């Protein structure tokens, strides 16, 4: 397992996929800050930039990573080389999940850093002392990562089941779209109150951290939901991958 993780880190360090996604998220988030300032939509202080990672548009790019970095390994023979060397299929899958988690963490970091610095430049940083801000930033960045890891399991599963970059990206986008549509439906339904169902969706948690900073129950529920979103596809994938034929 150690060797598999080392290989993933090595490949990530050489990967252009991650670099391009970082560049893309840097550009789109910078553009968003400028547009927001020009249109005077709302004023976001730099100290609250850490809450800006949780947009579904940002999360879509994680699916692109799963496609270009993970599913492509089935096409270029990377998975074949690992398995033919006697590596355990469960470990191979977990190593890919590991690279997905690293990617999500790095991309979220790019987003929150751009949001924090960018909003500080255009709107000002805010009143928070530096020491307090550091703790506040790290704590909420950690929550943001945990809530976003719910995607890692699904996107990696799509990569392993389809074994094709294009299909992985398509499935990931569809998954995001379905989650958004259901979320929107439960949020806006005018009849019976369906809002409690929103708590079954990860985006409920990563988009509402800033309103629930002292709500312990909110975080507990969030961890549980995201853990389930993470574990279910992982269990399904490892089970299926162990039986799967590799072309």
């Amino acid at each position, binding site marked *: 397992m*150690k*060797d*598999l993780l*080392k*290989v993933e880190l*090595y*490949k990530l360090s*050489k*990967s*252009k996929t991650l670099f391009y996604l970082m560049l893309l998220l840097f550009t789109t988030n910078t553009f968003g800050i400028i547009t927001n300032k020009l249109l005077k939509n709302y004023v976001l202080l730099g100290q609250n930039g850490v809450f800006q990672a949780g947009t579904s548009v940002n999360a879509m790019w994680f699916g692109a990573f799963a496609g270009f970095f993970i599913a492509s390994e089935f096409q*270029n*023979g*990377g998975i*074949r*080389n*690992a*398995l*033919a*060397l*006697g*590596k*355990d299929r469960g470990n191979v899958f977990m190593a890919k999940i590991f690279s997905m988690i690293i990617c999500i963490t790095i991309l979220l970091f790019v987003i929150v850093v751009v949001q924090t610095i960018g909003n500080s430049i255009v709107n000002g940083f805010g009143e928070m002392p530096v020491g307090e801000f550091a703790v506040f930033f790290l704590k909420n960045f950690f929550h943001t990562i945990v809530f976003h890891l719910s995607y890692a399991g699904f996107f990696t599963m799509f990569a392993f089941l389809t074994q094709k970059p294009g299909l992985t990206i398509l499935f990931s986008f569809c998954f995001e779209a379905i989650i958004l549509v259901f979320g929107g439906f439960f949020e806006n339904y005018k009849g019976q109150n369906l809002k409690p169902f929103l708590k079954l969706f990860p985006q409920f948690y990563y988009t509402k951290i800033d309103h629930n900073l002292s709500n312990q129950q909110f975080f507990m529920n969030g961890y549980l939901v995201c853990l389930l979103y993470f574990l279910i596809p992982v269990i399904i994938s490892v089970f299926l991958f162990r*039986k799967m*034929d*590799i072309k």
Partner: protein
Amino acid sequence: MSNKAVLETFQISKQYGNNKALHDVNLRIEEGQIYGLIGLNGSGKSTFMRIVCGLISATEGHIELYGKSGSTDLQKQRSKLGQTIETPALYPEMTADENLMVQMTLAGISEKKKIKEVLRRVGLEDTGNKKAKNFSLGMKQRLALAISLITDPKFLILDEPTNGLDPVGIVETRDIIKNLAHEYGLTILLSSHLLDELSQIATHYGILHQGQLITQISADELLKSTNQYIKIITDNASASAEILNTAFSVKCEVLSDTEIRINEQSERIADFNKALIMSGQKVQHLSCNQHKLEDYFLNITQSN
């Protein structure tokens, strides 16, 4: 040569839906052998190799690698394997050095100096910093071979290693494989549809036909089992055949107006020549030949 089995398969079958890709394959490869797996496209060669490498599972039967079977033991034994199956497994955006580094790390090897050595062995020295996507097909095949060698395998599985190569590339690859077997003592399982090429390397053959292993034979046995024949070209094949038949009671196969083939009494080639000349026949060509692997393969697959 040692009799220790590197690979032994027992009643291996693989079914895809209603199609049986492999049917009860019992194959044995011993240490030091260069085993040529021969078969038409779709005969099950790649499927068999994938099963050995653990990429696909057999529907029935089991395999032993170095005398070990069972999924955990097989997994351990596979660390002694090197393989290139069908397309070369490469990261196109990485350099040759980086591609080798990935495989080394995967195998838990840290000696970076091995990279240069392996590239030299496959004739790719001075290309370490070049990206794999910029390699020609021949270079990609050789880089894939280098990747399979970087982990110091004892058993090499090569599926169509000369596929898509030009004649020079084919000869170079053949020499590399020969060298790996002779200098480094590797056991090699390889498939190729270039039977003439294969016959210059392989010490043993297995013929797969419609998913069944119809025969296993060593190169020596093949030589003994394939007859010599005499090829004669004269200005009148029918007349020449009659002369030889009358004089020596030999059966002549008339292949065309000018060509005869004789499958017996090859030791009397000089007598045949003399008899034809004395009878006024113009002998333009006369040679003693051995049936090739190709003929053997065609005969055995057609009779099955």
